[in-house]
């Protein structure tokens, strides 16, 4: 409390990360050119930075070059193109706070977005950045897989489209080449009568998911059609659990059939283990989140 002779210093300079070169391309062409040049020299794309920057602060990530795509023209595009919602590389999580598409797709994305970390993180972090980072606990990775999104990668070699089911290759691993930028995600719009349910378990509000489930289906004559059950946070990367989906087909939705599907999902996974959740607990959680996500389809 006592004033002393010391001078105040509130100009904090760059401190925590290891040194890196910073590049700020203005166009996609420039960005992929820089990526081609610097990726082999340990270059990384910087989008929202909500995962990469903390890792750099701990010096667990030490990219020699950062290619900041935040200034690249046109990458904030969030639009419906026919039957697809296009989410460009710099669209923030917060863009989904309000429905980004009519019908169940927009409602689903809003419901999921509310579970992503905390408000300030959602203002900065990006949908495509989450996909490229491929954290097993990422809500958007689970969403992309469950909704069969198509992911467009671009490099100086050209463009290609990767199905979400083939995009994630393991924990923090993707099918992107080191010179490829994830340009956009294309999420097919759900039919207007699709029902969905999402449930996530984390230790505290905003923490990484220890397990989560996203479920979607339609009713045909009162029976479940085209069911999807995606599980995230439990394995190295999210995936749909075909065996659990199969038991739902043609059944009337209800607690008993949901319980059966949840039990199958819990058995089907090969759980990750960490300090907060061993394998047995993760199976417990997968059973609970699957059942609860399915129950939420009835709301």
């Amino acid at each position, binding site marked *: 409390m006592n004033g002393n002779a010391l001078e105040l210093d509130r100009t904090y300079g760059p401190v925590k990360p290891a040194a890196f070169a910073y590049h700020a391309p203005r166009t996609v062409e420039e960005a992929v050119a820089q990526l081609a040049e610097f990726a082999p020299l340990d270059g990384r794309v910087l989008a929202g930075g909500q995962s990469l920057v903390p890792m750099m602060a701990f010096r667990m990530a030490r990219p020699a070059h950062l290619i900041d795509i935040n200034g690249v023209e046109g990458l904030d595009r969030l639009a419906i193109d026919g039957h697809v919602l296009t989410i460009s590389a710099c669209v923030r999580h917060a863009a989904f706070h309000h429905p980004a598409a009519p019908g169940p797709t927009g409602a689903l994305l809003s419901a999921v977005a509310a579970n992503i970390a905390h408000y300030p993180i959602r203002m900065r972090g990006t949908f495509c950045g989450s996909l490229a980072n491929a954290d097993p606990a990422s809500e958007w990775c689970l969403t992309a897989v469950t909704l069969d999104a198509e992911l467009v990668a671009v490099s100086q070699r050209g463009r290609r489209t990767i199905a979400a089911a083939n995009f994630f290759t393991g924990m923090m691993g993707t099918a992107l080449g080191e010179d490829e930028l994830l340009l956009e995600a294309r999420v097919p719009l759900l039919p207007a009568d699709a029902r969905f349910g999402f449930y996530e378990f984390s230790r505290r509000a905003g923490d990484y998911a220890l397990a989560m489930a996203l479920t979607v289906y339609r009713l045909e004559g009162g029976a479940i059609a085209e069911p999807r059950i995606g599980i995230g946070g439990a394995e190295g990367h999210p995936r749909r659990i075909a065996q659990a989906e199969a038991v739902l087909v043609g059944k009337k939705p209800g607690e008993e059939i949901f319980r059966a599907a949840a039990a199958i999902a819990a058995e089907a996974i090969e759980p990750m283990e960490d300090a907060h959740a061993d394998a047995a*607990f993760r199976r417990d959680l997968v059973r609970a989140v699957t059942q609860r996500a399915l129950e939420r389809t009835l709301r």
Partner: protein
Amino acid sequence: MSAPTKGSGMTWVGRSIRRVEDPALLRGRGRFTADFKAAHRVRFVRSPVAAGRIEKIVIPDGATVITASDLNGVKPIAPALHKFGYVQVEQPILANGVVRFVGEPVAAVVAASEAQAEDVADLVAVEIAETAAIADARTAFALGARPVHAAAPRNIAVEAKVETPGFAAAQQGAARQVAVEIRSRRQNAAPLEGRAGLAAYDAVSGRVTLTCATQMPHLMRTAIADLLGMPESDLRVVAPDVGGGFGQKMSLVAEYVVLVWLARKLQSSVAWTEDRRENLIAAFHGRDQYLRLQGSFDGVGKLVALSAEVTANVGAYSCYPTTCAVEPLMAMAEFPGPYDVRAYSCIARGVLTNTCPMAPYRGVSRPSITLALERLMDIAAAEFSLEPLEIRRRNLIEKFPYTSATGLKFDEGSYRQTLDMAVGALDVPAFRRRQREARGQGRYLGLGLATFSERTGYGTPAFAARGMGVTPGWETVELSMDPSGFVELRIGASPHGQGLRTTLAQIVADEIGVPPERIKVVHGDTDRTPYGWGTFASRSLVIGGGASLLAARKVRAKLQRIAGRLLEAAADDIVIEDGVARIAGTDRALAIEELARASYHQAHLFKGDIDPGISETATYDPAGTFSNACHAAIVEVDCETGRVGIERFIVAEDAGRLVNPMIVDGQIVGGVAQGIGNALLEEIIYDETGNILTATLADFLTPTSREMPPVEILHMETSSPETVTGSKGLGEGGAIGAPAAVLNAINDALSPFGVSINEIPATPQRIRAALRSVGERRP
């Protein structure tokens, strides 16, 4: 704040006036150590392994890097304790040949900026031949375990025993034996501000000023001067705004010793600001105990004998000044808590391991012993088919003063009344009905109680009982009034969030007739304040407040004498109130500032009778006083996921006379938050190799506003005859009671399954494991 004082019958004490600390803090104008400029910034290179021999430290060319070999003549930290088989172990200021925990400082890098210091630190290569590490206390004192220090062959740093005469007969003669084993995992106090220090050399005086985030500036001065062999008068320690301590900032910090050494060596200023990872791995930890408790009851649920075994993991070194015995000795002295039991036996040991050293943390053992004792009471209640409330009523102490089996003297309290108050707020029969209905729907609600005593404001006799080489306890204040009637109170206590600048001013204001805004409390600067022990152990309001009251009474007496002389009346007939001194029963009065001015500028009027000026000193060293409280929690356990939600949390608290109820409530809520963290979330985890797995706030989980229930607070005010203010301390109670209340509530919720959770934090994973172990079935 210009309300009247005594004349209207109104006092400043007892009112929730706004904190004078807040305008600056809330506007971002606080001044914390890291806000100040320094010529050099320091980064510490730390051991990446838990145990090993340092074979080589390779320093990059041209870099300024200090290692143990540079610190010739600097003494190691080796606090002393003269009892209980204490083994004195030494902590070198920088690791000297051997590393004993992950995060131990090995080298100090000095650079022009933090960025440069961090870059250089990256390049310092420390080659360590790793040896097997021991992280767990039980493993560490098993036969054949490798010693962490050669001086302690079985890793036992301290082992204390007590047994009352006739204990065995009392235990064996009891009707029913009830036992419980408790595991309280390791926490980090997680203050908002980590540790930070800035040592600046003054070329003119040759002195060094160490500005740092500490709870005890005077003791830091003595300790650092001792270790460096420098004159204590050449060191000034300043605690500016400090962002919470909770005990983590009351021990000597080796890194600060390095800073002062560097400032003298470089004749310049050097600063270090800890990052959160350093704080989580290398600032002091707390808790981490195994407790075994056996209660022996008569036929109607009255406790007749209690035996306890405490095994406390103290980490790799012993903290200064309390020593690592602080946790086990507190547990031994206070285990019987608020219950009347005459036969008592306890063995309490502190065990060295290759983990971050322990220091006192809000509550010091009492959260764990309260947890054990309150679990025991609930288990016994179930065996006797009593409501938890009833078994407590049968055992709580009622007559005061009460002398415990360990010889502690309890002053007037309200143990049964606060229990009834908390329970009254709950409506237990209605809850039990709701609980039954919910179980029918597959929902599991539980009610948990925790009654406890909180010894606070204890002076030198209590600390002397521990046999510490350094025996804290008393506090001194200096109170002076300047010629304009403004008042300065200089204190040895060192508040860092407690609001003492407000509360001490309230105490003084009532005595000397000036409003609190004319009273400035000065603290946290060894050049400006009398030697004192700082702020910890729920002591400052009681001891610093008591000393302030005593000094204020002296000033009041002097003002009465001055006024008596000027008004030609007897000093005894002068009433000091509302800014004036008045002859009682008349309208003849002088303003306090007129008295002050006369005291300095008209001293000839009092020559030979009253000394010039108004400045008084007082010291206070009380025996100690016991606060008491009952915490009650209602929780819901989600049995499928193991998640615990807290529906209600009630605190019925008696801390004697309350000086500022708003500040009191803030202390309680903050303590409860840390207690809930202890009960449900916070856990420092080491793997078997001594590697720490919880080095970020994404892994070490503190409760946030989303996890905190509203805390309902009820007060009683049983004035303490043991303190001059009638007040009792209460800084730790929130953290002491909450873990037991929450864990008892969880066990109540899970009682249909026949499982017991006796480990905290009671994480979803642990609750699910317990439920799986019984096949999820309700018997």
